[in-house]
């Protein structure tokens, strides 16, 4: 047996609450993984050279512990491994194992399924870092740049979290899968990321905000279902990740707030809808971006019916959103539900067994949540005294996955022949012209306290610091 090389002080380098210092298996696994992760970060992470960034680092799971701020060089960021506190009485909340104690080890029976779920989740985390790698160069302010990097390092940490599970619980196969997570790359020809939506570059900041609002929100719901898992370490990992995920959505929500706010200002100042020529983003372009990001995020929930997801539920691997707050038998073997369908060529619904309809259940929760953001942005318009409103498009709009993938509808849900859709879609989805215009606005503002003209400054800075704080020192 080859002796382990002198163990590095992992607890210092890698803040954790998983007893890393006495876990030989994890130490061994991380020994080869950590350098590879750093290499990946260097080659696939943010391209803009920085000296340091004012970042939050989680150092433990307590309230104070995960809000630890300071200027750090991103390469030296301490990506930690944190699980929410263990509840020793926790029991499986759903499926055929309902009521049994949760699992601290992977049951052999579910090894393959659990590994697959973790790999798919893990694959999305570094993907978004890759998608956003060039955005630093066009940041509208140091504050926004800092937020971008915070999201990036936390997505990196979420990768760590999934890799931790693979390393700690899945043996050699787990280590191999962890390696693969670094070798698949967003947009790569030969080894793309697993889910299609994660292979599109995030080309501009409006897309970034939309992505963090809509697509990261999909992540929140996926994590929420895994938080219910009977496999306790997965549950606890996801619970902690959800705390960070809410910050990412905050970046998206307030980012769009500020874009809408600035657009409304320009509209009022110049009494026009067409603020494009004034250095702003017209409301209809914001709506088009919203339409696009919302509809592709709906696709991430998969088909309306899924036997895999039904099996995951029955096995206890993946629950429903807020599983324990639901009032039913949590087994669903005899229940049914209505899911979206195309019936006789029209948009309708069809009844399926509740177990196979779980994707639809989760998507509905997500849609409700998305509506909150739209309401919030509309309040800004309302307060500005403007009559225009933003809307979520119809569920069937621009779908490429599921029951509606074969039809085309307007944002209002009116069925269209394909040719008409092709002719009119430029009114609903960003056109090349729209994208070019948005991109033309993305001129970097790297001066303290200054901000680009297309977006309003935030109401508050980070961690009580003012907006003009030196959040990033560029190299």
């Amino acid at each position, binding site marked *: *047996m*080859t002796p382990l090389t002198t163990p590095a002080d992992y607890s210092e380098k890698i803040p954790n609450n998983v007893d890393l210092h006495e876990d*030989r*298996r994890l130490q*061994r696994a991380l020994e080869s993984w950590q350098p590879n992760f750093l290499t990946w970060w260097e080659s696939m992470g943010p391209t803009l050279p920085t000296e340091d960034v004012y970042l939050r680092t989680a150092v433990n799971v307590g309230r104070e512990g995960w809000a630890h701020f300071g200027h750090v060089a991103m390469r030296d960021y301490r990506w930690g491994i944190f699980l929410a506190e263990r509840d020793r009485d926790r029991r499986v909340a759903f499926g055929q194992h309902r009521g049994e104690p949760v699992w601290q*080890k*992977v*049951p*052999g*029976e579910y*090894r*393959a399924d659990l590994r697959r779920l973790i790999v798919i989740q893990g694959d999305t985390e570094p993907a978004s870092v890759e998608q956003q790698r060039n955005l630093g160069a066009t940041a509208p302010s140091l504050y926004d740049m800092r937020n971008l990097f915070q999201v990036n390092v936390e997505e990196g940490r979420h990768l760590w979290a999934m890799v931790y599970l693979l390393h700690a*619980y899945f*043996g*050699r196969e787990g280590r191999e899968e962890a390696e693969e997570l670094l070798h698949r790359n967003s947009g790569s020809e030969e080894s793309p990321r697993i889910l299609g939506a994660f292979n599109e570059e995030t080309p501009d900041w409006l897309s970034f905000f939309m992505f963090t609002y809509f697509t990261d929100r999909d992540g929140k719901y996926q994590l929420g279902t895994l938080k219910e898992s009977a496999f306790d370490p997965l549950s606890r990992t996801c619970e902690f990740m959800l705390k960070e995920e809410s910050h990412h959505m905050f970046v998206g929500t307030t980012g769009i707030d500020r874009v809408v706010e600035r657009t409304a200002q320009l509209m009022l100042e110049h009494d026009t809808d067409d603020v494009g020529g004034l250095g702003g983003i017209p409301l209809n372009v914001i709506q088009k971006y919203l339409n696009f990001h919302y509809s592709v995020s709906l696709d991430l929930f998969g088909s309306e019916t899924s036997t895999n997801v039904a099996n995951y539920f029955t096995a206890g691997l993946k629950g429903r959103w807020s599983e324990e707050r639901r009032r039913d038998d949590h087994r669903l073997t005899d229940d049914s539900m209505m899911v979206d369908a195309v019936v006789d060529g029209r948009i309708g619904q069809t009844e399926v067994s509740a177990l196979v309809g779980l994707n639809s259940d989760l998507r509905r929760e997500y849609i409700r949540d998305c509506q909150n953001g739209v309401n919030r942005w509309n309040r800004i318009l309302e307060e500005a005294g403007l009559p225009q409103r933003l809307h979520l498009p119809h569920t069937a709009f621009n779908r490429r996955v599921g029951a509606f993938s074969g039809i085309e509808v307007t944002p209002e849900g009116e069925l269209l022949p394909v040719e008409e859709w092709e002719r009119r879609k430029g009114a609903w989805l960003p056109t090349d012209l729209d994208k070019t215009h948005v991109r033309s606005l993305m001129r970097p503002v790297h001066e303290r306290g200054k901000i680009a003209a297309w977006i309003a400054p935030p109401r508050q800075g980070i961690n009580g610091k003012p907006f003009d704080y030196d959040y990033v020192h560029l190299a």
Partner: protein
Amino acid sequence: MTITAGASSAPDGVRPEGETGPRTAVGFQTHPSRYRHWRLSVEGPVATLTMDVDEQGGLVPGYELKLNSYDLGVDIELYDAVQRLRFEHPGVRTVVVTSGKEKVFCAGANIRMLAASPHAWKVNFCKFTNETRNAMEDASANSGQTYLAALNGTASGGGYELALACEHIMLVDDRSSAVSLPELPLLGVLPGTGGLTRVVDKRHVRRDLADYFSTRSEGVGGRKAVQWRLVDEVVPRPRWDETVAERAAAFARTSGRPEDAPGVVLTPLGRTRTGDRISYRHVTAVLDRARGCAEITVLGPDAEPPRTVAGIHEQGADFWTLAVTRELDDLILDLRTNETELGTWVVRTKGDPALVLAYDALLLDHAGDWLVNEIVLYLKRTLKRLDVTSRSLIALIEPGSCFAGSLLEPALAADRSYQLSGVFEDADPGADPDADPATVGVGPMNLGPLPMGNGLTRLGTRFWGDAGALAAATASAGEALEAEDAERLGLVTFAPDDIDWADEVRMAIEERASFSPDALTGLEANYRFAGPETIETKIFGRLAAWQNWIFYRPNASGPDGALRKFGTGQRADFDKKRV
């Protein structure tokens, strides 16, 4: 010398019928003094095995063993006799199998027993029956102990299949005795213990004649039976005894078995069986019902082998290779029959690999000795049992094990093997950090003397179509291979180190237990026998699979199926759709 055994008691243990519920285990140990269904007599070089089934001696209540029909209990005695003839009677060169009943040789497996048995019982019973028949053929082919079927009355179904396992079939010509395979017309099933295969593959009966023969419930007798090669000769009743004796003597003259050698007595196995443990001197099985697995540990020799072949004879049944083979054989039969829910067998060994190889070398150096020959053949047959066992086999190769030479074979027979890379370190409180890493070793025993049913060595089967890999594994003979080398050579499946070991092994066993046992049986049976077909692989693969499918179909075992309706005076009602 004449040994005659009368009926006194059944094999030890009373048996079950249901597949679940409390029950007493079926035992496979018996002795001629306790036979109820057979008489074994030995006259110089000729032994006579006379089947005279006790109608009331069924293993399970609910049927009578009329017309020399048999059940597992009858077969257990036959197996015992075949074994003892080889070891205890070196002087026997011909074994005459005949009947103690008037006008009937044997009517085959008891139909009421089959109709009442759960599926798993039928399948396991047929497997064991097949193995005994193969053992008879093995004796004829490799031991100089030729089996001669003396059909002094009609041999039907399994009775004729028993005759087919003999080298020479004589049928009395009394214008009424015949051989037949009436399973299809009468019972809606197949002659499933080798009959269909041996008729065409061994006896070379033309296929269209075989087809006709197998649909004719009354069978074929007299000269036609000879012309069609169903039997080798028919003999008029007045000349029967004399002719049988002549043939027996003629076969005896062709044998190379020794004349005055003393036999080796197969002494009773020291065995204890509790609810969760079966122990012998060298073999132990812990029955882990919660995990659905049996953890089998085989101990290597605890001393140097004797220096001479005489020493082997002197040790007799205590000689390590023979003793461990007998124990393993008994354990396999026990677990298969009595522990159907232990779907995974985890095999470990413990001991000094050098000693295992030393025993192997002693045996191979004296291959011409009759006892040595028998021991190696017996080991071969026992390992074949492992190959056709419908359980997942997982070998765990840990420090202190002795998977070398003959004891490497169980690992090669396994569906998967795990060899610990390095040693168990501090993580395991019971582990010895100063132990040497586990090794496996190829030896001469792996390169020919212990072929599988497909005629290839397990190594040859493992590396079927990959001559380079086979050559590399062969060239490693004599080396003690640590995990990385063994994995590289393809001798083991995985080589986790101590950090991964416990979880990898746990998950493999748990995952196995979660799969469909039927699908696993099918998967394993297909992957274990790469390479060419032989009569044996056809019987265990093709014939048995078809038979087991037919057994399960309503046309056989449904309430209106042929097996159920047999003997009721009613006709079976078939679903006419071909599948």
